[in-house]
Each structure stands twice: as C-alpha cells, then as structure tokens.
C-alpha cells in the first residue's frame, strides 16, 4: 500500500483533472479514478518503468477505464463504492469536483481553434497543455510513438499559432 499511496499522492490530482475533462461528470470522474487506483492496488508490480513513467501508466489505465465504461454499465460506480463507501458523492465533494469540471470547461473554451483540430491532435495537445504530461508521456497514453506525438504536437501548434497571432485567446 505504501507504493500505491505514494503514487496516489503524486498523481491523483492530475488524474482527477484528466477524468473530469474527459467525462464532464464529477461522479463518473471520481469512479474512474477510484477504479484506476483499485487496479494499481490489485496488481502490485504492474508498473514497468521500461515502458514509460508512472504518470503515463496511470493515465493509460484511466484512458482504458474511460473507454470501457459504456460497455460495463453494471460495473459503473462499483469502484467508487469500494473506495469511497457510496456510489454518489457527498455534497461537499460533489461541489469540489463540479468546480473542477467548470475549470476544465473554461480552460478548453479559451483554447480557440481546438475544435478544428483532428481528434488525435486535439487530445494530444490537451494532454500536454492541460494535463501537463510530457510529449513522451502523452504518446504512451495514446499508444503512439514519441516521435509521432512530437510531429502531431508540432502540427497542432502550427494550426493554432495563427489564431493566437490574430489576438484570439488561444494559448499554446
């Protein structure tokens, strides 16, 4: 548990940010993060440093859990129940995470031009600019090579740069 706790302390905040940005729902985001750390807890030694950083590993698990959610309706909120003791958030916690959803929405809203990017470039750009992953970590999360990630990132920045120069609120 010590290792898991250290991982949790280091990465839970970023993971929650990623989950609320991807899902837009506080309870679903909390359930995903609970599922990620349950998976870590139940698979000690599952992290292989040769395949990337702990952060990219955890984000990868979260991406996996999010992608599987629609197909595992019966399992939804079960992780939250195990870790948090209930399937719905208490009022204070709901408010805390709703504020993070609002912040995530606001952060993506100011990035003008994002909607015009292809999905793969958009997600990569957000992982790096909002979730603060390195390009190599983002590449591991998305299952692409670091060089492909760097190329896509450069392409995304090239597309967004003219918007920033025109004085739009785009922040690259």
């Amino acid at each position, binding site marked *: 548990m010590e290792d898991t706790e250290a991982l949790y302390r280091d990465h839970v905040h970023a993971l929650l940010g990623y989950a609320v940005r991807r899902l837009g729902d506080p309870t679903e985001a909390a359930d995903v993060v609970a599922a990620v750390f349950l998976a870590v807890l139940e698979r000690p030694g599952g992290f292989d440093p040769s395949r990337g950083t702990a952060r990219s590993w955890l984000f990868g698990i979260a991406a996996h859990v*999010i992608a599987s959610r629609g197909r595992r309706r019966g399992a939804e909120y079960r992780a939250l129940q195990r870790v948090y003791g209930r399937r719905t958030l208490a009022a204070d916690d709901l408010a*805390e995470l709703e504020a993070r959803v609002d912040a995530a929405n606001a952060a993506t809203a100011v990035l003008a031009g994002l909607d015009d990017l292809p999905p793969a470039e958009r997600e990569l750009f957000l992982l790096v600019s909002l979730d603060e992953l390195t390009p190599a970590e983002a590449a591991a999360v*998305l299952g692409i090579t670091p060089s492909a990630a760097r190329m896509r990132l450069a392409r995304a920045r090239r597309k967004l740069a003219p918007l920033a120069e025109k004085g739009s609120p785009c922040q690259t």
Partner: protein
Amino acid sequence: MPDLTPFEERMLAGLRRVEPARRRRWLPVALTAAAAAGLLVLTVVRPPVQSPTDVREASAPPAIRHLRWLSPHATAAGPWAEEVWIDDVHHTVRLKSPDFDRTFADVPEPIALDRPGMPAEFAAMSPDVLAADQHTIVADLPRTADALGAAVERVAKQTGRYDAEVLTDLLSKPGLGADFRQLVVNLLLRTPGVGLLAAPAQDFSGRSGSDYTADVGPGALSFIIDMNTNTLLSMNKMTIVNQ
C-alpha cells in the same frame, strides 16, 4: 508531495481500507469449464440437432466477422469508431467510419485487409495491430502450444505489440482450422492480463459468446469469442485513428 484536497483525502482513506482482491485467474478457466459442462449436459439430455462435426465449424451464422476500433476521442456524432464487417460467405467487406461507409462486393478469398491487391481503402482502415501481418505467415506457424507461443512472442517483440494483440489479430484471420483456432484461443486465454469481462455476451450482430478483455498497456482491447467453435466474433480496440 502536493497537498490533497478533502475529497482526495477521503478517497485515500478508503483505499487504505480496501483489501486487495484475490487474483481471479481461475475465473475464465472455471467459466469455460462450466460452459463446457453445461454443453455436455445438454448434449446428453437432449439429442443433438446437428451432427457432432457441426459444433466444430467456425462461426455462428451469418458468418460475419466484425472488427471495430474505437478512438478514445469523442466527435460531435459520438465516439470515433472505425468498423470492418467481413462476410466470408457472400465475400463482401463493409468499411465504416464517421466520415466513410462503403461496401465492397466480390472480394477474393481469403479476405484479409492488408492482402496485396485489395482496394486502397482497406489499407487506410487497417489499424496498427495489423502490422503484425507483415511478419506473420499463418500457414508457416507452428502447431504446438509452446512453439506457437514462442513465435507469437517473437512477433510481438518485433512489432512492439503485446502478445494478446498478436493472438487476437491471428484469430481474426480467415481460413484457420478448428484445431489451430483452439490452440490460439487456449494460448490467448492463458496470456497474462487477459480476463473474462462477461459471459454470456453478445456481439453487435446479436451472436452469443464470451467477452474478454486484455491488458495491452495504455490501449484497451476486448473481444468476444464463440467458445463452442473458438471463433473470434468481434474485437474492440481503443486506439488512435491516424489522421
């Protein structure tokens, strides 16, 4: 270490109380055994409608293989998905994505997406995992579990893929014999990180099978297998669609 918010503290307290679940590697085996036992009982209690050899034949009708690759990114119309529907009986292939939907008729056998001479759209739709094809010649693969396992491991290393990806890819190929399919399925279900998600489960055309998931690093891979015939009915792979 960063300070935790009150909610994050509560989650951590809950994690400390969680007891690690026991490993459930026996679950797929137990459920497979239960399914086999059930089939045996049905066979004994009720005379078979089909001849015994029919049970070993590939795929439930209609013989359509459905492969689907999901991107984790949502589009305005829903999740980005590329789908391939292969009908080995009528020799048609339907390629479908949010901005493309076309059915090809009279596709020569054996139908494989990356076979030379196939329409260019096939290659464009092929996911990265099919890169394994370039290194795998099914006919030359060994027919014993140990040797096949070693070959799969070699291909996985060469292509930077997980064993489960190579095995499911192999299982999606047409023309595999019943014994070879059984060998591949046995290897696949023994692969670390492969576990039962739901049984029974239905594929997109309503056929019944067992739904498995595979740990393939940051990607997600799940597949439905008809355990009676060891046929891969459908496969879902979360990946990034090349732009």
